């Protein structure tokens, strides 16, 4: 089995009694990429991360990080990775500096000038007690500890929680730099704009199952478009929805809003057969809509 990837899972499955939190998950995160792991709340993102971090043990399947077994070699693995758990909790009585010192002592060999550099980039305050920090400032301490040991792989679970947009952008830059220097980032998120901006490839998970695995550019090239038509008469949603490639039809009197993938001439011809088209405006769909489409398709088949 090929285990040279940064993060690799095969048939990873986790059941909690009758609840199937994770079903047969195959992932392969490569060095030099930012991998976006997308899904709605409760889809199994955190379960996946907790499994590869050896916090919980899989019911079936296998996971490895940097070619090492996630359970057997978990201590050695953690020497080479950075981890930012979801819903970060720190020791409220310690200052940021105490917190980083604690983890540095457990790791050994942390470069403090690099830590200072990270803190400056994120504008993190290390002198206050963590319990007295706002959630965003607390999150910065978490981000610093995830990057401070020059990890080969950074695993982050909803890292942007509480961060203001400027700091979010800085964090995204840090992720890109990590990938550029040959490291890998596993980024779990439900904020699609973030993933769209930073990720190379995206895995979409729903109800514990991976439902799509594509590069961001190929997802975009699916070229969903948002189309808004202004008609001379009131439209019948059934007629509009019957056109191949059309979905998510919303009709407001003379105005029709829909998502469309296909050739625009086909749509215009079909619309022209039934209605007089007064005006048309289109824009490129973002990942959000593509994601919703995958999500809905799955829901429809369930």
């Amino acid at each position, binding site marked *: 089995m090929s285990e040279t990837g940064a993060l690799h899972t095969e048939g990873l499955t986790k059941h909690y009694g009758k609840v199937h939190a994770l079903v047969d998950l195959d992932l392969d995160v490569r060095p030099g990429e930012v991998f976006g792991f997308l899904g709605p709340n409760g889809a199994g993102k955190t379960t996946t991360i*907790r499994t590869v971090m050896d916090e919980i043990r899989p019911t079936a399947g296998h996971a490895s990080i940097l070619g090492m077994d996630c359970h057997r070699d978990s*201590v050695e693995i953690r020497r080479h990775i950075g*981890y930012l758990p979801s*819903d970060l*909790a720190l020791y*409220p009585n310690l200052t940021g500096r105490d917190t980083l010192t604690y983890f540095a002592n*457990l*790791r050994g060999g942390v470069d403090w000038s690099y830590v200072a550099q990270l803190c400056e980039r994120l504008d993190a305050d290390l002198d206050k007690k963590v*319990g*007295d920090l706002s959630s965003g400032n607390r999150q910065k301490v978490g981000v610093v500890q995830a990057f401070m040991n020059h990890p080969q792989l950074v695993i982050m679970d909803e890292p942007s929680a509480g961060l203001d947009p400027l700091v979010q952008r800085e964090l995204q830059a840090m992720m890109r730099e990590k990938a550029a220097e040959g490291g890998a980032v596993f980024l779990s998120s439900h904020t699609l704009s973030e993933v769209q901006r930073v990720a190379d490839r995206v895995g979409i998970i729903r109800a514990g199952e991976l439902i799509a695995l594509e590069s961001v550019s190929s997802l975009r090239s699916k070229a969903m478009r948002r189309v808004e038509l202004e008609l001379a008469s009131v439209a019948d949603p059934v007629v509009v929805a019957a056109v191949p490639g059309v979905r998510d039809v919303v009709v407001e009197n003379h105005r029709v809003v829909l998502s469309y993938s296909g050739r625009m001439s086909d749509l215009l011809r079909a619309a022209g057969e039934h209605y007089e088209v007064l005006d048309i405006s289109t824009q490129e769909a973002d990942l959000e809509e593509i994601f919703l489409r995958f999500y809905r398709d799955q829901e429809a088949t369930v």
Partner: protein
Amino acid sequence: MLASVFARTLHERWRGVAVAVASLALMLLLAMAAYREIDLGVYDSLPDALRTLMGIPPGADLASLAFGVIFSSYGALAMGGMTISIGAAAIAGEEAAGTIGTLLGNPVSRAHVLLSKAASLVALVTLGTALLWGAGLLVPLILDVNTAGLQISAFSLHFALSALFYGFLALAVGAWTGSRGLASGVASGVMVVSFFAVGLLPFVPGWEDLARAFPWYYLGASEPLLNGVDWAHVAVLAGSAVALLGVALVGINRRDLRSRTVGVTLLDRLRANPTTRRLADRIGGSARVSRIWVKTASEHQVTIVIVAAAMFWMMGVAMGPLFNGMNVLARDLGDTIPESLLIFFGGGDLTTPEGWFQIETFGMMAPLAVILVTVAVGAKALAGEEERRTIALLLGNPVSRRRVVAEKALSLVVSGAIVGLSIFAGVAIGSWIGGLGMEVGNIAAASLLATLVGLVFGALALLLSAATGLVRVAIFVPVGASVAFHVMDSLARLNDAPWGRLSPFHYYLGADPLQKGLDWGSGALLAALAAALIAVAVPAFDRRDLRQTG
């Protein structure tokens, strides 16, 4: 909303009350069963003061003796501890958790929240007392023990109001300061100090009346079990409770509420001061976080320091000179105090320094102190990090779960040893100041065994913490087990029963370490038991899925 704050507190707490009452009922059953077997004639000749300390009314028959020992000492302390915990959590707890903002985001006034919390406290005390009252009627019935002349209802009224007093005291301190630790610390301090003051002051000629200044006095001094309700005493308790509630109402309306707060320790102040900063940084910063076990122990520094200091001064140093003051009285009592009664307090001869220290310090307080600290450290060791969700980051570092358990166990042993050493030092110094001439080696032996027996229950807490990830389970089970084993050991010694060997406490004072020195076998057995529990904790934690609590 008023009703739901009330109902929620009730819902969160009634189980604890029920469990405590059930344990007390069981203890009453055991005590009555044991007392049936022994001659009780000698109790009539006991001096009033000693009976007050033990919570036993004069003319004690079987039933009132059992009631006295179980309900008015253990029971009243347990119920007081419960109300203090509820009272301290009422306002200050919501502030510490950061939930007070959401709560008061609803259209309810601070006064309403406080009053509904107070109402739930009253309801819980009523519930607990009613259940105890029921047990007080039922247990004698089961054992066919005569309770004629015992006014259980009157005692229950005193009992309930006394518990309420401490709860409202904690509530008031919490409402004024927003500090849960301060609230429970002050209220427990008042309760424990007044428990001992009321027990010991009557021994000191001329100071007898000072006992009236302490709230514990109004629980049992009037012997409500025999004499019925003393309305003046009841009025003192009820009046003080109402006054405290008023104080709490004023306090909560006056001050700025805290958001989720972090306590400010002495070390923090030293770190903030430029002149002491460098030194304080070294102690409080880099040293504190150098190892997992050091950090764990430092999280419990307040508990450890308070318990160790209290044991050192009050149960150690002060007891030496006190023995001389009591000596004459104690010698007179020598023949009249039945050993069977003293066994509950560790047994021993009050006329010798060794016997004195055994009853006052080692019998109950020394193991209790070690258990208090080690169970707190053990229970929070792993489950605490899981419940606070810091375990994810801790284990995000290259440390194995086995190492985490091992380091947590080390902090358990260290904190137990600190308490044990302070007991040893206190008693040794007390004996030296009082010129009592006790063997230092024997004091060391008893202190070591107290530490080891405490560590057994601390190790049990660590094991449960490792295996379940639930702090509550890891606290209540070892505490319950320690009380049950202590009672079991005492009862077995009363009856010379062989099953006493099943209790760890048998290996603590069973071989009389204060007189005869260390029994290596007992020490080894206790150490092995603690080590075995810790050894089981390692795989228990290693194999388990860690919890994710939100």
